[in-house]
């Protein structure tokens, strides 16, 4: 059954873990700054969950970087090919 299986690898990768470490923030601190739960930060950093576009923009704004420097689309993990 679908819900019993772990979350499959998502095609969108991110550098949130590295950027948070650079700022020396804990997951709880980052969660507070973004007004989300600590569990959501963990799910984002472990790439089990892709943020909505508004949340992605808030993350980019908080780290002071453009979206594409934080979130990277990995074609190989989704099995898609370039057309």
């Amino acid at each position, binding site marked *: 059954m679908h819900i019993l299986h772990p979350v499959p690898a998502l095609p969108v990768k991110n550098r949130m873990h590295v950027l948070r470490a650079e700022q020396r923030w804990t997951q709880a601190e980052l969660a*507070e700054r973004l*007004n989300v739960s600590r*569990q959501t930060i963990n799910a984002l950093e472990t790439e089990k969950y892709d943020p909505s576009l508004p949340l992605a923009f808030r993350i980019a704004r908080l780290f002071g970087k453009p979206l594409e420097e934080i979130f990277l689309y990995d074609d190989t993990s989704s099995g898609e090919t370039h057309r």
Partner: protein
Amino acid sequence: MNTKPRISPETACKRYQWEMVAGMALYALFVWVCVQLLKHLPSGPVRISLALLPALPVVWVIWAVVRYLKFADELQRRVHLEALSIAAGVTAFLSLTYGLLEDLGGLPAVSAWWGFVILDMVWACTSFILFRRYR
């Protein structure tokens, strides 16, 4: 949603848990009070009104769920809505199946109260399983 929530998802979660426990405790208390009072009351409007008393804390619990979902973050909202969808589907399927067995299969009638129990139980179990996937 463009407006910034007034409280954090963590605070919303704690408040929801407290309201859920308090609401269900009040529900149990009201059921006990009703059972004691209804023992000596004849059928009629007063009895019907008293029998509905335990529904009041349930209304409060439903309101708490709606408020929690409003202040939850997007992952929490997604998990709960997915869990609620599954719970609603399972409850609908079981009600339909037992309705057929009751009307056509000759099985004994079961209280409609079980719909509430099944929905809550499946929702709780599914939420637990879905949240574990994101840990």
